[in-house]
């Protein structure tokens, strides 16, 4: 399997690094979202999306769990 490494650089002290594997298709959608909504970086867009998902209380379905396993 090919893998492409993409890093976001941001160094505030009260932050922690999170590493994830994403499909290229999903990363392209994140970039589209970032530019359409004028976020200053991909990291900012992803933080917004993660924050919104947690606040919305999204719950994985049984199908999601199956795909994860």
């Amino acid at each position, binding site marked *: 399997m090919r*893998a492409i490494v*993409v*890093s976001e650089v941001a160094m505030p002290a009260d932050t922690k690094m999170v590493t994830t594997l994403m*499909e*290229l298709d999903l990363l392209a959608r994140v970039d589209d979202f970032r530019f359409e909504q004028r976020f200053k970086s991909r990291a900012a867009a992803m933080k917004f999306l993660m*924050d*919104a*998902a947690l*606040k919305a209380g999204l719950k994985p379905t049984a199908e999601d769990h199956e795909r994860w396993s």
Partner: protein
Amino acid sequence: MVVSQCPDLDDLPSLPVMERKHLPEVRCIYFVLSPEGAVLYIGQTSNLRRRWIAHHRFANLADCQEVRIVWMATDDADIASVERALIERYHPSMNGAYYIAGTVVDKAAEPTTNVSVNIRVPVDLRDALAAYARRENRSLGGTVAWLVKRETGRTLAQILAGAMEPSRPR
């Protein structure tokens, strides 16, 4: 609109990409044409000028004076179907390519190619993500990818409606 009614691109309004600041603010299907007239890309937008002020997919085209943007204003409610039909008709070379920060990463890459992404997040968000992952008995990385995938499947309006007091880092 049906595929058999493909527009004659010569009859449609157009501007060189260098003059994109003068594009009209119209809802439309747009075509990106090479200097030779080949269709490079087809897209849709609710506002052509705004779309092109910062079109990340074409960072490399922005300085090419001879590339033209052709547009076809439309009120068609199903603009996405029209776009798909035109893409099937013209097979633009740049549709389907993957762009990371404005650069083609791999034209032949499969959509499912895995990409490793490292981001720094505030400690409280990281802790919330870790708690969520523990609750669902999943890895932190897998949880992050799943949450982002779910959210990108929704419109911004849906996201904002579902999230209480979303803090938007700009």
